[in-house]
């Protein structure tokens, strides 16, 4: 039987009930949300199920939504069923004060570096990760540059005229 989005959704709802929500299909990609305590259970189910077989982690990253109190950081998982060539995506949200999310490394070895990257840029603390340290940025960096409160420009420069670079001065 063909693995359709509706079928995947039905299976998930049977198994997890209200713990999976916010189903959408932007550009045909099934997307949903689950509480962060539940992320491993959902992944394990999607991995082990004989029909679903989402055994490949395509991508893992985060998004920062500063104006959603209590759910500022979204961790996004992209999974791929290589047999039926079906992809899905799901998100877990966490508060920025305590950005603890369970690591997916025991299920997908590829999550190792992707979680390090997500930690590096967003400061998501992956509980249980074997080696959670910066991967792309310099080790001395003391902030998480992709969080929205940090401006893109290098703040240590003193030789640029701020007005010319849209910093401090007024453009209009």
């Amino acid at each position: 039987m063909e693995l359709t989005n509706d079928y995947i959704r039905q299976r998930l709802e049977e198994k997890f009930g209200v713990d999976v929500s916010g189903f959408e299909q932007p550009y045909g990609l099934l997307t949903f949300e689950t509480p962060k305590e539940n992320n491993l259970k959902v992944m394990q189910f999607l991995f082990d199920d004989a029909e679903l077989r989402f055994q490949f982690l395509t991508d893992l990253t985060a998004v920062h939504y500063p104006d959603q109190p209590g759910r500022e950081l979204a961790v996004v998982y992209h999974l791929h069923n290589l047999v039926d060539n079906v992809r899905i995506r799901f998100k877990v949200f966490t508060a920025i004060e305590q950005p603890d999310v369970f690591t997916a490394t025991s299920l997908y070895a590829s999550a190792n570096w992707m979680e390090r990257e997500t930690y590096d840029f967003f400061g998501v603390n992956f509980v249980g990760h074997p080696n959670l340290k910066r991967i792309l940025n310099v080790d001395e960096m003391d902030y998480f540059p992709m969080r929205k409160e940090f401006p893109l420009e290098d703040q240590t420069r003193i030789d640029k005229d701020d007005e010319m670079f849209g910093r401090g001065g007024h453009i209009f």
Partner: protein
Amino acid sequence: MPRPVRFNVHPREADIHNNIAIAEMPAGLQGEGYFATSLERVVGLARKNSIWPLPFATSCCGIEFMATMGSHYDLSRFGSERMGFTPRQCDLIMVMGTIAKKMAPILRQVYLQMAEPRWVLAVGACASSGGIFDTYSVLQGIDQVIPVDVYVPGCPPRPEAILDGVLRIQELVHNESLRRRHSEHYKALLNSYGIE
């Protein structure tokens, strides 16, 4: 209309007669059978025309450098025939491209491995100032970690500009005093970069 493809079926004979650049003689005293000049001038002349560059190419400017090294622009015409890929044998490090902050210690180490006298050419906006990458991950100019002799502006600079930069380095090499690298001034410069 597409441009017709031309094949080089009638190659021109190279006109090398009276067409070979010969370095100018340094100023000095001469008479029949002798010529006297200062050692510094001779050394400067020799160094100037036999610079071994070490290309440190990291991004788009590096592509432009490849054109500079290729037959069309041909950096070799200026005595820089041989690219060295070991810093220990090279006189000039040409830094071309965006240097990420994580790359900075490596660049610095390569510089430290070069023997004195050594020169540094920063090619392109990125190497000179960080360029368009005014961001948390990019070094805002390599002169934050090593002293630079000549900056070539442009994003990327045309090969002519890179050649011009090399010629300016040559000028510096030619006119440099043999004592400069032992001077207090130079030591203070290196110390300001934390280099002993």
